[in-house]
């Protein structure tokens, strides 16, 4: 069975499966895309963000 036939039978044959694939794919893509951008952003701005300097001030609070 050709790969295109497999894809057709799995995702496109039934409309409910097709719509479900679109919706789930949108969720999965958004999560993956956003976390990739966030990782890139954090790498590019490492040392400049609050989460990078937070430890200096949170530890001080614990000592008090």
């Amino acid at each position: 069975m050709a790969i295109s036939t497999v894809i057709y039978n799995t995702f496109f044959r039934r409309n409910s499966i097709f719509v479900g694939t679109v919706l789930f794919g949108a969720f999965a893509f958004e999560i993956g895309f956003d976390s990739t951008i966030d990782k890139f952003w954090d790498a590019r701005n490492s040392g400049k963000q609050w989460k990078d300097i937070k430890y200096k001030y949170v530890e001080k609070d614990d000592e008090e």
Partner: protein
Amino acid sequence: MVNRLSGSPLFKRLASSVSRGFSTSTKQASGEVSGATRNAVLATVATGGLAAWYVNLYGNPIKAVTLAEHGLHPAEYPWSHNGWLDTFDHSSLRRGFLVYKEVCAACHSLNLVAWRTLVGVTHTSDEVRAMAEEFEYDDEPNDEGEIEKRPGKLSDYIPAPYANEQAARAANQGALPPDLSLIIKARHGGCDYVFSLLTGYPDEPPAGATVAPGLNYNPYFPGGGIAMGRVLFDGLVEYEDGTPATTSQMAKDVTTFLNWAAEPEHDVRKKTGLKVLIITGTLWAISLWVKRFKWSPIKTRRIVYKPPKL
């Protein structure tokens, strides 16, 4: 010669048009100037004259504002948040808030910034709570309808130094210290301007510059006379992270902080911009490919005309 070169119908058409062009020009050169040509010359002269008159009248306006009145343009500084994908230097924001609190806040309000917005940006929530509690705010009316005071909470806004505009003017010889919440957005040059203004006070005004009484000379301020005097001097504040508190360091930190105050959505905006560019760029490339794919039979087809045999 043209006929010798020409093998195809295209060349023949070219050759015929060229020869026609030659014939027209020879006819004009030999005969009198036609009416159409004279009209064209007249129209061109009239248009040129009209344009010259217009430029003479409006092209060189008298400027009512001298360069000094316009204010010296600030230099461009390499802010660490300048790039499309760069965030603020948050250590600088923290130092900048200290400078605002200890220096600027004596006269300038920060009406649009609430204490809670500092949490997770410059300070921990415990630190901000402690700072807010140092100020008193109006509480809700009690059973007698009297309004009592209560210590500040995270949801309160940073208190203004003056109760209202009149009080602010009365305390500053009639000059109103502007609210600094949006000052970076509200001034041409943004960060560069504010930094230049803070660091640009000369020891004495240059020769020829006149400053009205009660004003201070600053070349970056439009007109040169500014009611605010120089406020930042080396060692004015003490940074907790040990950074030397020079004038330019304090000006840089407070300018960065005010840029954050004016644009708290800064990081989200830049991240979203990157996402939008990636997604729309991909969609654009796909649409380009689809168009070429769909059009390929049309673009590569060949239309052949077979003349009927007579």
